[in-house]
């Protein structure tokens, strides 16, 4: 991590409802914005004056940084994320940011992005920071229409948007007649696992941003680990501090 994280009270500058499940939060903070790199995430929770809310912060990827604005794209899943998507302009949040490592910038000429559901935001940020001469193909999958956002190829389980099926099907087809120097991915574990097997077969480098249940978000509790290393010599590394981005070949998928 390049910088120490900042802990701060921030004002919600805008909160845009994207659809019934997703909202976009905008927070303005030049210092934090200046430190964010693609792959980084924030820990965030609503703030109510007078009393500390005794709930965990929620890890949310950075979706976009535009001058001093940080954008977060949040899906309402459970209690914590629902509260976040219901924030209004002017509400305050507690923020710890930026956190985690970042995606290695591609060295080749052609890459694929593969996202599933709430794996979308960090890839958008990555894409926005890529050199213009890099060819990018973005595959995005979701359960249904509301999980789908702008991309090159959309897949849904229920067929309500894009093609019906798994996003990996699209990738497999595409790889048949396209060179690919690296794949970047974020999404549910099952997706990442399938991709890892695929990339192994095709011998393509794969960088994944892992998800994990987090408590501290800053590396002290060792709650958010993934097994990293070789078959013979691995250790549990922290998604929040050693990750969230890992080289898929280092992950001991068989232990997850």
């Amino acid at each position, binding site marked *: 991590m390049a910088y120490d994280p900042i802990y701060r009270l921030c004002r919600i500058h805008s909160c845009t409802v994207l659809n019934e499940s997703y909202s976009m939060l905008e927070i303005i903070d030049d210092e934090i914005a200046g430190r964010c790199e693609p792959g980084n995430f924030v820990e965030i929770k609503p703030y109510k004056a007078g009393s500390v809310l005794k709930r965990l912060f929620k890890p949310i990827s950075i979706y976009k940084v535009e001058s001093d604005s940080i954008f977060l794209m949040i899906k309402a899943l459970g209690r914590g994320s629902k509260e976040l998507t219901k924030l209004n302009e002017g509400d305050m949040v507690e923020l710890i940011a930026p956190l985690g490592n970042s995606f290695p910038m591609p060295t080749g000429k052609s890459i694929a992005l593969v996202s599933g559901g709430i794996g979308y935001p960090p890839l958008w940020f990555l894409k926005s920071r890529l050199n213009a001469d890099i060819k990018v193909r973005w595959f995005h999958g979701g359960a249904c229409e509301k999980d789908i956002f702008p991309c090159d190829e959309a897949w849904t389980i229920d067929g309500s948007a894009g093609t019906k099926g798994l996003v990996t099907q699209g990738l497999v087809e595409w790889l048949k007649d396209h060179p690919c120097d690296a794949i970047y991915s974020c999404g549910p574990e099952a997706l990442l696992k399938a991709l890892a097997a695929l990339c192994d077969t095709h011998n393509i480098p794969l960088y994944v941003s892992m998800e994990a249940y987090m408590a*501290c978000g800053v590396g002290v509790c060792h709650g958010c680990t993934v097994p990293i290393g070789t078959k013979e010599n691995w250790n549990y590394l922290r998604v929040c*501090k050693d990750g969230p981005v890992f080289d898929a070949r280092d992950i001991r998928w068989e232990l997850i």
Partner: protein
Amino acid sequence: MNLLQTSLGRLPLFNPVTVASGTFGTEYGSFYDLNRLGAYVSKTITNDPKAGNPCPRLFETEAGLLNSIGLQNPGIDLFIKEHLPLLREKLSIPIIVSFSGSSVSEFRRMLIQLDNCVGISAYEVNISCPNVENEGIAFGVDAGIVSELVKTLRAETERELIIKLSPNVTDIASIAKSAEESGADSLALINTVFGMAIDPKTGKSRIKRGIAGYSGPAIKPIALANVYKVAQAVQIPILAMGGISTWQDALEFFYAGASAIAVGTASFYDPLAPIRCLEGLETYLKDTDIPLCDLIGSISF
């Protein structure tokens, strides 16, 4: 006069706010000056490196946290070689090293190895981690073994010896007494309570290993009952923890008989929790002009 002055037996503390083992790290130094704390308590180390338990290791319940880290740590050698020097470099406050072993002789060997290192002010002997099978916990539930362990360790060190107790026992007072009689300088309590959660949609345990350690606001009344019971049973000081999030929480524990407190899970809810506790206590004691030591154990009914 420093109204916050307190001590854990042979270890004087400039203020009573410390942090709970395993819930803290120098990473929090990004947010405030760690040297404002009364003491720093390291995550428990074991003799050999430990990978810890499989994931998920965490789950947040309605008013607390389940964890099953399983004492993941780099082992004593790496701790001494790399971590301890870093702590010494960053910290001028007392450093309390938490450790755990799988036999009395392993505990003893570890203590001796640590006793050769400068910059350690006290040991917190963890005989109460619920998340490992062979380390610690078996010791914490048997007064006889506690006695043997504490005597053995006492013979090897002049440093402050804190014994960390488990609440998951029938009679914590008898275990506390046996630690006291065997030479412990002070007692730390409570470690986490056994807890579990299941996803009602799938029937799957929220924590891979099943039963986990429960901490946070929900266990505060349990911690307080245990601290009170132990304070009634022993003369040595108590370092209290279990759901402490605010200075008002801390006051409850002082009244119940604690000489110092540790902030654990609360740091996850509020990275500044230890400092807010400290500042709140400071203001309160100044406003009422009562030294902390006058409050300790002064509960009424």
